[in-house]
């Protein structure tokens, strides 16, 4: 665990940068984390972030693909380089433990 100041808030994050306390998450923090991943968040990103925050348990790429918000290809395009691990980091939830 490490301390990190994101969007002016002092936060505890894991070694990989995931928030330790999900309740501290704000949209501003999301934007900052996204910037570190070279992603500029759009409305569409926030729709997905909302979905994954509400469906954290058993979250998989397949579930996001079936959410009706985005298909799997679109999900890869919006969060390049590892959509599930990057989107969950931005959404302030735990790193997913799923293998699919």
């Amino acid at each position, binding site marked *: 665990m490490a301390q990190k100041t994101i969007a002016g808030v002092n936060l505890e994050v894991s070694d990989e940068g995931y928030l330790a306390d999900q309740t501290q998450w704000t949209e501003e923090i999301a934007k900052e984390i996204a910037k570190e991943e070279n992603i500029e968040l759009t409305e569409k990103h926030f729709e997905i972030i909302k979905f994954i925050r509400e469906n954290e348990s*058993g979250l*998989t*790429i*397949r*579930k996001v*693909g079936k959410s009706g918000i985005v*298909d*799997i*290809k679109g*999900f*890869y395009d919006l969060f*390049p*380089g*590892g*959509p*599930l*691990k990057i989107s969950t980091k931005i959404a302030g939830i735990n790193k997913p433990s*799923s*293998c*699919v």
Partner: protein
Amino acid sequence: MTEKKDTQVKKVAIVCAKASIEDVYAALVMANGAVMEGMEAKLFFTFFGLDAITKKYMNKLHTATVGNPGMRMPGGLPFPTLLGAIPGVEAGVSAMMRNTMDKLDIPPVDEFLDMITAGGGEIYACKLAMDMFKLEKEDLSDHVSSVLTIGDFYAIAGGEGSQIIFT
């Protein structure tokens, strides 16, 4: 003192040569896992592994109920080999296995190929095995990019941080 230096895996070329559920899914999970982590993935199907990308068979894969020491009855008792030889048992067990996987959100083969290619992974078929089994490109899933010789496969499998995996 030698300094330990890890080179990150950046690309995987996975070879699947068998048609059983466990062999095919091991290859699919590894390829999909690679693209999920932002790595490049090439998936090469050869010999009986071609069943996994043949339209007619891909969603009807079986697991062996004979000669499979890991096979157990529900509850953990050993699965008698003679029981596994009864017609229909292998199909039933395989259907059960596919059903269980579906509950864990592990998709059917065609949907899994969809997911892998959506993430930029590429699927290939082995030319020699296609000739052996008298298969044509039309018999294969649309997710298959092309039919390769082994030389072609090595040509696309290289690069820094790349690994070739035989499941």
